[in-house]
């Protein structure tokens, strides 16, 4: 009856065509590879191609430079490289901005890691009073555009170097020195405050999953708390700390707004603002060289990050079965800790937002008296200004820009969130390693390309018709596509992380139960990942709403977003109106966060404690 004997009928050896048919059928039953290829094409077109086209600009002659570069349009040239790196203007255009970028990023990383790790630990592993409240409050600076902080800084510390309203400090009778008003110091402080939540979120999350037994076993072997912290906890947290540092570095490389507002008055350039200048003066070749340098720096940091993470993966024990999560009692450190956390919230969220808000309800900043207070910048009529003669809430353009922001960023974020989960699925499941690696890298690429450079790339690619795609300049489509593409790093990282956590089994169990691919996706995979899908949509949404550098080149007056509208107001000198719009951006961002959390029935703060 039972037998493994040779009499069992042996199948014929089979033709190659039948073997191929078998392979195809098995592949189609698990369409990962098909999706992988489709997604690869999609992102190659919307991310890789624009960036490549721009980089090619760095080594080919531009139409306008045919005489200087000594070649016909499109010919290979080293002219731009030489001009940017080794000519008389290179210190101004490249080397000094590079040095400034290095100084600022290093300081920002140092500050955010020191403060963020401590705060991440406080909100995830201790009995800090009001832990849940702090978890949310400490993330607020991330929801506020970084350039808003710069506006707030100016409102507080501006001096007579540039015109406009008095600052609060001036109104109080002091004249702040240039180094405090503008340049490296405020840029560093503001970027550090803005990116602090990254570190709190990442380190807090890792600590929350950290098994207390690992600490306990070290303690039982006689290690002091100090040794446990430095020899056990820190090494195991290294992956999250490295990731946080990489993200912060990449962000510092690409931030234009803060340096534009605080660096330009004292001629301090970072690579990003140097790039902005070359783009705005139409030097396509030069801007391509600087953008290339930024991409190389970003890529190098990511490669180092991945190298180190690879080592770290060899000791994956975090989140093991039967993990115990013990809360550390702060005891007599409770009040110092609460004071510290409250101080960070005060400096990073309360002061800037409050200062901005007060600016919009005062005729002269910093003077708190009944006569000085006014709501006219919000809801007034017949103001004594040349244009914008009514309060911002009564201005039609403001509401158009608000609606544009919500729907464009909303569509881009939902698309990015869903595709991010898809990418995660393919990256984790693809039987072809090359497809997985390509998708992982290509979706992360926009992170290394500063928004302004990405926008330039999009212009060079989509300003002219390509194949079935018509010229998109001045349309909402180019904005939505650029927003979507630039949000893929967040979304795909969230998707990959989520899919890594889920084993194959829940899905295989559904297969066995008889569910086809679509059914599995809708009934099993998506619901299990609801939480990560929410953060995969939420994070891009917040960053898209406040983002300026990406859209500033792509938006035209008809397709203004809130950020570009605010900058137009800054340029025209309507400081109060610009600050009012900045506050409205924060309101939209907060509301968006709240709505997405309601829909997803999960809480962003859950990510870092509670």
């Amino acid at each position, binding site marked *: 009856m039972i037998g493994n004997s040779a009499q*069992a009928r042996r*199948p014929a050896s089979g*033709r190659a065509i039948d073997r191929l048919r*078998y392979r195809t059928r098995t592949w189609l*039953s698990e369409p990962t590879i098909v999706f992988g290829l489709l997604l690869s094409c999609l992102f190659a077109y919307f991310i890789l191609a624009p960036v490549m086209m721009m980089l090619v600009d760095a080594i080919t002659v531009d139409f306008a430079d045919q005489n200087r570069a000594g070649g016909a349009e499109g010919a290979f040239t080293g002219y731009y490289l030489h001009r940017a790196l080794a000519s008389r203007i290179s210190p101004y255009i490249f080397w000094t901005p590079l040095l400034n970028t290095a100084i600022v990023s290093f300081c920002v990383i140092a500050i955010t890691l020191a403060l963020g790790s401590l705060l991440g630990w406080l909100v995830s592993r201790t009995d800090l009073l009001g832990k849940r409240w702090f978890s949310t409050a400490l993330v607020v600076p991330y929801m506020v555009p970084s350039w808003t902080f710069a506006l707030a800084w100016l409102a507080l510390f501006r001096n007579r170097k540039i015109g406009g309203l008095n600052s609060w400090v001036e109104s109080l009778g002091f004249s702040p020195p240039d180094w405090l008003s503008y340049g490296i110091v405020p840029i560093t402080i503001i970027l550090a405050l803005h990116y602090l939540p990254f570190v709190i979120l990442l380190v807090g999350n890792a600590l929350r999953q950290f098994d207390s037994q690992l600490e306990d076993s070290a303690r039982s072997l006689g290690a002091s708390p100090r040794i446990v912290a430095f020899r056990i906890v820190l090494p195991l947290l290294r992956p999250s700390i490295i990731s946080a540092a990489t993200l912060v570095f990449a962000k510092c490389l690409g931030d234009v707004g803060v340096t534009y507002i605080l660096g330009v008055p004292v001629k301090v350039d970072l690579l990003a603002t140097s790039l902005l200048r070359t783009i705005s003066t139409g030097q396509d070749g030069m801007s391509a060289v600087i953008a290339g340098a930024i991409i190389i720096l970003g890529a190098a940091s990511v490669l180092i990050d991945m190298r180190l993470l690879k080592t770290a993966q060899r000791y994956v024990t975090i989140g093991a079965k039967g993990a115990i999560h013990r809360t550390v009692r702060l005891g007599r450190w409770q009040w110092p800790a609460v004071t510290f956390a409250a101080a960070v919230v005060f400096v990073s969220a309360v002061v800037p937002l409050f200062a901005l808000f007060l600016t919009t309800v005062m005729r002269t900043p910093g003077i708190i008296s009944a006569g000085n207070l006014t709501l006219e910048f919000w809801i007034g009529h017949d103001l004594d200004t040349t244009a914008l003669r009514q309060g911002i809430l009564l201005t039609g353009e403001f509401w158009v820009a608000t609606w544009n922001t919500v729907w464009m960023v909303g569509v881009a974020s939902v698309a990015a969130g869903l595709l991010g989960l898809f990418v995660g699925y393919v990256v984790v499941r693809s039987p072809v390693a090359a497809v997985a690696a390509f998708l992982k890298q290509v979706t992360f690429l926009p992170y290394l390309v500063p928004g302004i450079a990405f926008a330039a790339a999009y212009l060079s690619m989509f300003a002219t018709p390509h194949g079935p795609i018509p010229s998109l300049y001045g349309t909402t489509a180019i904005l939505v596509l650029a927003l979507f593409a630039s949000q893929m790093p967040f979304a795909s990282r969230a998707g990959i992380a989520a899919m890594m956590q889920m084993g194959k*089994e829940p899905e295989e169990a559904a297969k*066995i*139960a008889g*569910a086809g691919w679509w059914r599995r996706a809708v009934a099993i995979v998506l*619901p299990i990942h609801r939480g990560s899908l929410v953060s995969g949509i939420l994070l891009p949404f917040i960053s898209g709403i406040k983002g300026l550098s990406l859209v500033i080149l792509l938006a035209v007056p008809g397709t203004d977003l809130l950020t570009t509208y605010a900058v137009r107001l800054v340029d025209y000198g309507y400081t109060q109106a610009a600050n009012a719009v900045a506050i409205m951006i924060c309101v939209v961002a907060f509301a968006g966060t709240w709505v997405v959390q309601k829909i997803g029935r999960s809480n962003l703060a859950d990510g870092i404690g509670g």
Partner: protein
Amino acid sequence: MASGAREMSGVSIRSVTKNYGGGTPNAVADLDLEIPEAEFLCLLGPSGCGKSTTLRMIAGLENLSSGEILIDGVTVDSVEKGIFVRPEDRNMGLVFQNYALWPHMTVEQNIEFGLKIRKIPQPERQRRIGEVASTLGIEQYRRRYPSEISGGQQQRVALARMIAVSPRIILLDEPLSNLDAKLRLDMRAELKRIHSELGSTFIFVTHDQWEAMTLATTIAVMNEGRLQQLGKPEDIYERPANRFVAEFVGTLPINIIEMADDGALKAWMSAYLSHLPVNPSEIASVGLRPQSLDLRPAGAADTPRCAATILDIVPTGGNWIVELDVGGERLLALSGDIDGLATGRQVTFTVDRKHVHLFDSGSSRINVV
């Protein structure tokens, strides 16, 4: 394809090879296995022997490199004929080692999922859920989420989810290994009962011989992707087909005497074997199970028995493991009684002829009579 012939039902695995590529050895090599209907078959072997791959190939979760698989006479996999039936269309049941319950569904929703897919109407669904839930004693957890019940209950839910759709073939991945001793006994009885009630074909994989011995009606021992032996549990234990099976099966490791070596033990064994109708030059090694060693305190007339010294005696609750030294070689014995035995004592032992396992130079069993 399906014919009425009885031997066509069940699962047929024919010349199946699985290679993951990249220069790795075959995970499963040229496997032939006929599993009749209503069998309770265990694929037993160490980790990496290909047993889980085999189970997953039957389920359709893993594709074949060559060969074919038939279920109830219907080809579901054939590389050579280009046939592949998707796992979702195979109508099987599979219980995963970690249960793979869907965390976002309640116990009831987990069980209902497969029924919904089969478009069974709501009243009938409720009836069936009630039935399997009461069979497995999980009614009171119907509205709970998997994270809110214990591991043993989770496994019952996984079983309930699977049997609710009455599959013809039921696959189990290490069904008892995540349970504690008491639950293992309960679940073992439960599985036996379900097997006899459903009359389905059960196939399970395990590396745990206790699980295999107590559950299976037939065991297929696998190693390095190849089938080593197929037989009833007692055959596997009493007549191992080769040295691998002899060494893998048995709670205490079998004593292996290499006949190429020199020494007192080999000398005694050679003398002992001279009584057997086997050419001694064919015998490369001899296996003696600790249980089959008959120990006595050293006496006067000891010629047919082998002399040894006791190195250690370890109680195991009812039995004692006695560690022996024979001219410098170590040997384990299991004894139910240690009267007159103590560490350092001289003893003698012998073995019943039918418990001596002889292996040739290819490690295959040499059958005596």
